[in-house]
C-alpha cells in the first residue's frame, strides 16, 4: 500500500508533471519484466503518467522474447523471475547483441547483489523497496544515455559552461573556482541536464558510495555548489525537485 501511495504522491508532484510536459522529453518506451503483477501495474501506470509507455512481461522467457524482438529505450528487470531468472535474461540479451540499458530490481538488494547484477550486464541497480521517483529518475537517465554524446567536451546549461578538458567552469563568462568534488558533482548534474538526479544517484556517481546517506549530506554539498555557480537566486539553474532530487536546467 505504501508503495502505491508513494507512487501516486510522487507522480502528482508538479516537479514530475513539469518534466512530463517538457517537449524535450521524446516519447520513451520501456520494458518492465516483473512477476509481481500488482507492482508491475502500478509501475506501468506511474510511468505512463510520467510520459513513458511501458510494456510488461511477467516471466523471464517472455521478457527475453520481448526484449530481443522489440526495441526499447530501457528495461527494468526483476532479479527473481519465474521460468528464467533476471540475471540470465540480461546475460542472454547481451549475448544476442541487445544493448538496451537495463536496470535491475531486486528484493535481495545489497552490496554483493549489485556487484553480481552489474557483472551480468546490468547498467544500474535498485534494491526494493524503492521510491518510484528514484526508479523514474534512474530510468530517464539510463534511457537518455543511449543518445547522449559522451564525447561532448563542453557541457552547457544556459550561460553555465563546463569544459571537460580543461576542467574549467564559467558562469556568464566568468570563471568559477570549484573543488575537485564540486566539479564532479556539477559535471554529473550537467551531463544529465534536464533530468532529475536523486541523492543516491549523486552519492553513487560522484562519491562512489552505494548506500543511502541517513542525513542531508548531499544537500549540503549541493548548496555549496549552488552558492558558487548561481548568480540570480530568483532564477536558479540548479533546482531542487521535492521528493525526488535535483535537476539542472535553464528555463530560459
Amino acid at each position, binding site marked *: 500500500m505504501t508503495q502505491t501511495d508513494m507512487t501516486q*504522491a510522487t507522480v502528482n508532484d508538479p516537479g514530475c508533471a513539469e518534466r512530463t510536459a517538457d517537449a524535450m522529453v521524446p516519447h520513451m518506451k520501456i520494458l518492465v519484466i516483473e512477476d509481481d503483477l500488482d507492482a508491475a501495474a502500478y509501475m506501468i501506470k506511474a510511468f505512463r503518467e510520467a510520459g513513458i509507455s511501458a510494456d510488461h512481461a511477467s516471466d523471464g522467457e517472455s521478457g527475453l522474447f520481448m526484449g530481443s524482438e522489440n526495441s526499447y529505450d530501457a528495461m527494468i528487470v526483476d532479479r527473481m523471475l519465474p521460468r528464467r531468472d533476471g540475471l540470465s535474461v540480461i546475460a542472454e540479451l547481451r549475448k544476442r547483441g541487445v544493448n538496451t540499458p537495463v536496470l535491475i530490481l531486486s528484493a535481495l538488494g545489497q552490496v554483493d547483489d549489485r556487484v553480481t547484477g552489474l557483472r551480468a550486464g546490468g547498467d544500474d541497480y535498485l*534494491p526494493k523497496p524503492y521510491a518510484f521517483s528514484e526508479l523514474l529518475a534512474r530510468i530517464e537517465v539510463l534511457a537518455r544515455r543511449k543518445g547522449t554524446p559522451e564525447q561532448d567536451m563542453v557541457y552547457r546549461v544556459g550561460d553555465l559552461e563546463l569544459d571537460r578538458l580543461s576542467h574549467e567552469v564559467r558562469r556568464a563568462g566568468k570563471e568559477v573556482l570549484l573543488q575537485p568534488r564540486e566539479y564532479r558533482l556539477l559535471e554529473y548534474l550537467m551531463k544529465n541536464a534536464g533530468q532529475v538526479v536523486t541523492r543516491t544517484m549523486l552519492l553513487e556517481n560522484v562519491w562512489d*558510495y552505494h548506500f543511502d546517506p541517513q542525513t542531508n549530506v548531499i544537500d549540503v554539498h549541493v548548496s555549496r555548489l549552488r552558492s558558487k555557480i548561481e548568480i540570480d537566486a530568483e532564477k536558479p539553474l540548479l533546482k531542487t525537485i521535492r521528493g525526488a532530487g535535483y535537476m539542472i536546467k535553464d528555463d530560459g
Partner: protein
Amino acid sequence: MATQLRLMFKSTAVRLSAVYILLFALCAAFLVFYVTALSERLLTQQTREALKQEVADVQRAYNGNGMNGLLRSLERRARQPGAGLYILASPSGEILAGNVASIEPGIIDKEGWTRLPFRYDPYNEAAGNNRPHLATAHIFFLDNGLRVVIGRDLGDPDRFRALVRRALMVALAIMGGGAVIIWFFIGRNALKRIDRMSAASKKIMAGDLSERLPVVGSGDEFDRLSGSLNAMLDRIEKLNEGLRQVSDNIAHDLKTPLTRLRNKAADALAGHEGGDRRAALEGIISESDQLIRTFNALLMISRVEAGSIAAEMQEIDISAIAADSAELYEPVAEEAGLVLEMDIAPDLKVKGNRELVGQALSNLIDNAIKYAEGVATDPALKVSLRREAAGVVLSIADHGPGVPEARREDVLKRFVRLDESRTKPGTGLGLSLVAAVMDLHGGKLELDATDTKSAQPGLTVRMVFPVEKA
C-alpha cells in the same frame, strides 16, 4: 515380535554385544580345545613315563626269576589300589593271567606303545556296570612267545566328554556374563548418553531452546560433543533472543511512523485542495522514505551479520576511504558549527569491503555530527587513522554528551537510542551496522570517552581492524 527384534538390532549396543559374544565364543572354543589337547598330551606323556618304569621292573623280575618272578610281579601290581592293566596273553590273544577280562582284539599283535586308546573290560567289575573302559598300554613279547601288556586306564570316555561339556558350559556362562557387562558399559553408559542427547535435541527441536545436552564432566568424547553442541545452542539462543528483541523493537519502532503516516494520509484526505493537502502528502513521502531507510538498514545489518558479503572482501585503501568520508561530511560538520579535523596516516591497507567500511565510517561521522551539534564544548570533531599495535585504528572523536559507560554495550543493539524522546532523526540502527561490519571484518569496535575531565565527556569510537602479519 519380529519387528521388535529388528528394532533391537538397530541399537548399536545390541549389535556390539552380539559381535562380542561371537568373538568370545570363538575364543572360548579355541581355548577349550587347545587346553584339552595339551593336557591330553601331558597326561599321555606322564602315563608313559610311569608305564616305562613298570615295564622295566617287570622285565627285571622276568630276567631274574623267570616266569615265576614275572607272574608274582604282575600279581603284586594288580592287587594295588587303583591298579592299571596287567595282562599275560598267548600269541593268539588268549588272556592267561592278569586283571582284565577282555581287550580289543589285535592290540597284542604289535610290540611297543598302543597308538590309540583301546577298549577293554575290567575283570572283577561289579555286574551290571560293564561299560567298556579305555586304556593305553605298552606291550612287549617274552622270549617264549607270550605277550605282556602293561597299561593304564584312561577312564570312562563319557566322563571325559562330560568334562569337556562342563568346561564349555562354564566358558559360555562367562561369555554371557561378559556380554551383559559389555552391554551394560556400552549400552547402558555410553549409548544411554547418546539416547539422552537425542532426547534433549528432540526437546530443543520442539522449541525449548533453553534445553541443554547433558554433560557428565568426564571430559570424554561425549562430553566434548555435548559441550560444542551446547556452545552452538548458546549462540543460537542468543541470536534467537536477539531476533525476538529485534522483532519487538521493529514492531514498536515501526508503529509510530506508520501511525503518523496514516494520520497524514487522513489529513490529506480531509484537507482542501492546495496547500494543506500538499503538505500532508509531502509528509507522507518523507515518512515513507524514513521507513524504507529503516528497512534497508535492517536488511543490510542482517546481510552483514549473516556474513554473506564476506566473499567480496579484498585489500582496500582505508586511508582513501577515511579521507573520502571525512571530505563527504566536512561541509555537513561546518554547517552544524563543528570543525572536522583529519589526521589520516597515508597508504594504510586492510582486508575488507570498501562500501561497508565506508558506510560504517559515514554512520559514525554522521552520529558524531548529530549528537555534538549545538551542545559540544569543543567544536573539534576528529577523524584519525593510525597504525597501532592492536591493528589499524580508525577513530572518530567528538565532544558531545557521550555515552555513559554502563550503556556502551546497549547502544550497539538494534533500535537502542539514548535519546528516549527521539527528537534527533535516525533509525537507531547506525551503530548496530557499524558493530556488524566490524564483526564481519574480524575487528573490534571500542567506545570510549574523548575527554573524561570535561563536563561533557564526548565520545570516541575506535574501529580496530586486524592486520595480517607479514
